[in-house]
């Protein structure tokens, strides 16, 4: 079989392949090394950090749903200072592209982190989370109001020389409007989508199942919503998209590429199959060969041309 070129250009980065992992599902890059070698991945996105350390929400933080998972971790993280001291030195030695994910509660928070994270840090890009549903003002108001989104992306862009990826919330009426706002702010790429706000109720205890009441829904359950949003944004906005939301198999990954994603990211799918990235790469290769495509880049947005 002819070889398939996986090289993916995205927001100024050259990735060895288009398969990434999602923030919040892959820790700080060390947790899955016994299952999936980092050098096999196009890149990883680290757990979201905030300026100050956070303990996050109480347990229960997780609730399973049909083909899905609700989580309300609440941005538990060691904080910027500890990240810079203990994690960044390790991260820069990792044999893959590493994207940091930042969250804040004010414009100043985002700027403070962007200021500390520049291209000499060894990071490949900054993903700006303006869409966390699990903490009060956990960036989500930046993610649901186009003016705020534009403002925060512009401020981060002006502060760091790293490529900026805006991670958008699906909990909006007009995803295209949000994508355009991020583009106006100067985003180099978009991550689509974060989790969908949901909840479950314990019918025996007659109270919400999650300590936080609401949580973000992820997993295969949300995939059709994510594919639709990638499709809409790809149609309307000229920015590369990292497609995510329930990707678990190579078929899922192909759907996102065909819908217009330049790269794809695996989140909850890692919990189901910690070798999902490897299986997806294998499947993508066979798919390209079967369809006579010498590069995976040829698949991007193909369904729009049909």
């Amino acid at each position, binding site marked *: 079989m002819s070889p398939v070129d996986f090289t993916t250009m995205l927001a100024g980065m050259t990735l060895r392949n288009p398969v990434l992992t999602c923030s*919040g599902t892959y820790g700080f890059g*060390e947790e899955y090394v016994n299952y999936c070698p980092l050098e096999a991945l196009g890149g990883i996105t680290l757990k979201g950090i905030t300026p100050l350390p956070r303990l996050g929400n109480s347990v229960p*933080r*997780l609730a*399973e749903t049909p083909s899905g998972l609700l989580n309300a971790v609440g941005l538990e993280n060691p904080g910027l200072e500890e990240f810079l001291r203990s994690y960044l030195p390790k991260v820069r030695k990792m044999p893959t592209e590493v994207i940091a994910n930042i969250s804040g509660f004010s414009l100043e928070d985002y700027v403070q982190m962007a200021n500390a994270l520049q291209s000499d840090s060894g990071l490949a890009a900054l993903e700006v989370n303006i869409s966390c549903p699990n903490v009060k003002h956990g960036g989500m108001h930046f993610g649901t109001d186009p003016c705020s989104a534009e403002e925060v992306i512009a401020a981060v862009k002006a502060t760091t020389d790293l490529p900026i990826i805006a991670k958008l919330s699906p909990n909006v009426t007009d995803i295209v409007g949000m994508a355009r706002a991020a583009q106006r702010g100067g985003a180099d790429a978009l991550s689509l989508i974060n989790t969908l706000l949901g909840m479950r109720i314990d019918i025996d205890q007659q109270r919400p199942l999650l300590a936080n009441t609401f949580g973000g829904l992820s997993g295969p359950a949300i995939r059709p919503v994510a594919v639709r949003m990638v499709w809409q944004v790809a149609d309307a906005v000229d920015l590369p998209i990292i497609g995510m939301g329930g990707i678990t198999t190579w078929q899922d990954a192909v759907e996102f590429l065909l819908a217009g994603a330049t790269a794809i990211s695996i989140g909850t799918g890692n919990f189901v199959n910690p070798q999902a990235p490897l299986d997806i790469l294998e499947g993508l290769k066979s798919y390209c060969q079967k369809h006579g495509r010498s590069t995976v880049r040829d698949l991007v947005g193909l369904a729009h041309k049909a």
Partner: protein
Amino acid sequence: MNCPYNACIRETHELRIREGDGEMLTEGLVVVHEYLGEAEQRLRRLVLRGPIAKTAKAGQFVAVQVQDSSISSFDPLLRRPISLAEISLDEDEITLLYRIQGRGTEILARARCGERLSIMGPLGQGFSMPEAGELWLVAGGIGIFPLYALAQSALAQGLTVRLFWGGENQSFLVSAGLKAWQALGLPIHLSTLDGSLGDIGLVTEQLQGRLLQTFGQTKLTDQAHQLSLNQIMVATCGPKRMMQAVTELCMNFAVPVQVSMEERMGCAVGACLGCVCTLINKEGTLIHKKVCQDGPVFRGEEVVWDESC
């Protein structure tokens, strides 16, 4: 719902060195899968053959994919964490004991001999073993399961082991493996809620009685007694409230206690922060540890039992 200690903390999150810890994704061949005791107790015994036994220790667990093997499906989505009840190096086998109590375990219960189940493991940190002296095991209900592997390795190491076990009634205790425990030839203190076997009441009452018998009525702190106290270590698994009571009792007598915590898990490898347990460190600061990776076994004295944390 609000944690009374809502202050943000600065705790050095240690990066774990994971080389050589044997953790892997593998397939376990189902060699035995049967009811444990009476079917109405809904307890199952699952023996899997595979390489995990080689590096596993008591107190660790595996994350089992629960899927009807004939139809690929992502519902239920997540793997189920199940503790190791027995580790057989000779046979390369691990034994998982579980209760059918939801959709996931119902589907798992259908796995037939000869099938292969996808498992991740061995996961987490197991029990630590005292070098000498007595190991007291305190179990509530099916919390007995991970303690069997611990008893086996403690006995193999020449330790004296004593079991305190409380359950609903005789039928439960017998189904959940009482005979296998009796075969180990160690002293067993049983209690049931209805008095149908052993003492009527809670397992903690039995433990308290034995602690008092061993150390006398007063809370002892002098050095001579400290030495004797150090000869005993307690390991417990069961409902949270029971483990809390066991910890408090042990702390009264300065007896070290290890607790095996349970929490809803996502990734099972420390990546998603879904299953945290609140601990209080030596400086008196509240910190979160991951039940899947830093636990499931913690030092009882360190656990903050307040549910809202």
